[in-house]
């Protein structure tokens, strides 16, 4: 496990070899605010191996980049078999007419060299229609172990240059891996790349574990564990694998832990005497203060990205609904007023939207609303959808879907409601939590 997480820092260097400054206005641009109906066609030929050791990664790097872009639903690959031109060097001039002839709009070229356990990956992006390079070429260096991450870095740069938005490919997701009979499930904390690859277990399955969350910098994980017999909150360092129990309230069962945006505060639920309230704990001092004191359930908190507010669910009105209160406690304002029960509110990284689970008339939905509760939109519908989590750029939501009589699996959907996809994982999985973009 340790080896996986000890990535050497990736060095991003400007190449600036032949790249001319981007002259004319109107570069390759995809406006994705309204959702894209017609995906942009792109070509991603195999990376050019710049030495013999690099050739083993030439095809694999290109496939990861192409899959990332295609999986957004915003891009459509023109497959290599259709390519007319061959890219022999990342610095060779581009014969744009060969790419126009097969209706490619965005061309990505790459190169890779390997020396020992170190590798260098380069790429360039071209606007085929206007016949010019978009931005400058970039190169990334790192260990061969992290070759997928370098492909994700290339994908993020291409995505950002074309959409004008931040990327999300070089990020990880913590989740719960499930096995065994439904009545006595074994659940293990696990981590994977956002595309479902590199899945690794972080706990051994002896204790039931639920609903993990990443710290804002992605180095720690909070989750609920039953290792002492009832629900308690554990804090794990990913780097070392060390864990400690935090947020102890005598006589209470504690769960639903979340980090504040600066990582210094833990907010969680404590259930005692038939009543569940929210508490906050300063992680350095250990000081705990009570945030809610309503004779009802208050759980599933989520901070606004500026740290000033907390959204949470409460059944104080009689059914579960979504509320917003100051991050230090105080009066909570209800923001969900549609039909049905609302649960698991999660503030978007941009701060404008809150994603939630809604159940109504025997169906479950993932939806989004503005943080004042207006403009509710349901993105999904199924027998059981729950627990949305945001991609770092706020464009994509991952969640748990359980088909009727089936096993739970992880799905993602664009916030436009398009591009519903199932993550390619082995075995049942639930409770995804998306981490930050890696440095």
């Amino acid at each position, binding site marked *: 496990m340790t080896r996986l997480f000890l990535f050497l820092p990736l060095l991003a260097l400007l190449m600036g070899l032949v790249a001319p400054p981007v002259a004319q206005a109107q570069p390759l641009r995809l406006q994705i605010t309204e959702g894209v109906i017609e995906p942009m066609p792109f070509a991603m030929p195999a990376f050019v191996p710049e030495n013999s050791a690099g050739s083993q990664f030439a095809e694999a790097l290109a496939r990861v980049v192409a899959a990332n872009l295609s999986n957004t639903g915003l891009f459509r690959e023109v497959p290599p078999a259709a390519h007319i031109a061959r890219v022999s060097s990342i610095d060779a001039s581009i014969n744009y007419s060969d790419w126009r002839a097969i209706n490619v709009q965005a061309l990505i070229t790459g190169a890779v060299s390997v020396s020992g356990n170190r590798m260098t990956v380069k790429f360039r992006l071209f606007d085929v229609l206007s016949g010019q390079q978009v931005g400058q070429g970039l190169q990334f260096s790192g260990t061969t172990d992290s070759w997928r991450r370098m492909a994700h870095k290339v994908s993020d740069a291409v995505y950002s240059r074309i959409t004008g938005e931040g990327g999300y490919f070089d990020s990880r997701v913590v989740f719960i891996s499930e096995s*065994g*009979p*439904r*009545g*006595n*499930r*074994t*659940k293990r904390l696990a981590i994977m790349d956002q595309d479902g690859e590199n899945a690794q277990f972080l706990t051994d*399955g*002896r*204790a*039931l574990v*639920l*609903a993990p969350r990443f710290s804002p910098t992605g180095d720690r994980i909070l989750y*609920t564990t*039953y*290792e002492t*017999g*009832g*629900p308690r909150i554990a804090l794990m360092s990913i780097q070392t694998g060390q864990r400690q129990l935090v947020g102890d309230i005598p006589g209470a*069962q504690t*769960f*639903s832990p979340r980090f504040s945006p600066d990582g210094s505060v833990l907010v969680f*639920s404590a*259930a*005692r*005497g*038939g*009543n*569940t309230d929210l508490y906050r704990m300063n992680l350095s001092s250990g000081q705990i203060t009570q945030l809610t004191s309503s004779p009802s*359930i208050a*759980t*599933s908190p989520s901070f606004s990205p500026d740290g000033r507010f907390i959204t949470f*669910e409460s*059944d104080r009105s009689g*059914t*579960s609904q979504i509320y917003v209160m100051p991050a230090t406690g105080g009066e909570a304002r209800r923001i969900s007023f549609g039909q049905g*029960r609302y*649960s*698991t509110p999660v503030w978007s990284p941009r701060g404008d939207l809150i994603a939630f*689970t809604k*159940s109504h008339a025997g169906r479950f939905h993932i939806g989004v609303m503005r943080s004042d509760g207006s403009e509710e939109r349901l993105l999904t519908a199924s*027998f*059981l959808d*729950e*627990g949305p989590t945001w991609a770092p750029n706020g464009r994509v939501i991952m969640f748990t879907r*359980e088909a*009727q*009589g089936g096993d739970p699996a992880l799905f993602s959907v664009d916030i436009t409601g398009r591009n519903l996809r199932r993550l390619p994982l082995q075995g049942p999985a*639930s*409770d995804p939590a998306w981490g930050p973009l890696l440095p």
Partner: protein
Amino acid sequence: MNLTTKALLLVAGLALAACNNPRAGGTFGGGGADGFGGGFADGGITMGNLGDPNDPRSIAHFQQRIGDRVFFTTDSSSLNDTSRSTLNAQAAWLRSNPQFAIVIEGHADERGTREYNVALGERRANAVMQYLIGQGISANRLRTVSYGKERPVEACPEQRCWDINRRAVTAISGVSS
């Protein structure tokens, strides 16, 4: 005790456990050894004779004749007449068997979100605990744990399963200290 005697006792114990354990989830109400370090008594393994359900002092009698569980409607922790009657009988048994400590497990069906269901399970377990305290059982003998929707008795995507999964189980957790 020689080896043969030990083996015979072991076999007898297994046979008893088998016939007195109608549920798949584990002997004492579905906790199951897999996730919880081997039970509730600080992770230690305790052994007791479950006995004959015809023996009113046996745990088997408590589980099978009195009934170790009560059920709830959706999102509710209210006890109905049937539940109160079951709990009255549980309280009587607990009064006459003061050596046992109790863990009340609260459970939810799968038609809610995970963390809400943990809170709901605690509320249900607490409703049973408060009722038993009201019937004269010492709070020192009672503890609650919520499993949310994690330990269904039966996993089927139908009303009949959800109805039996919304429950609080009074589990004999071992000898009271």
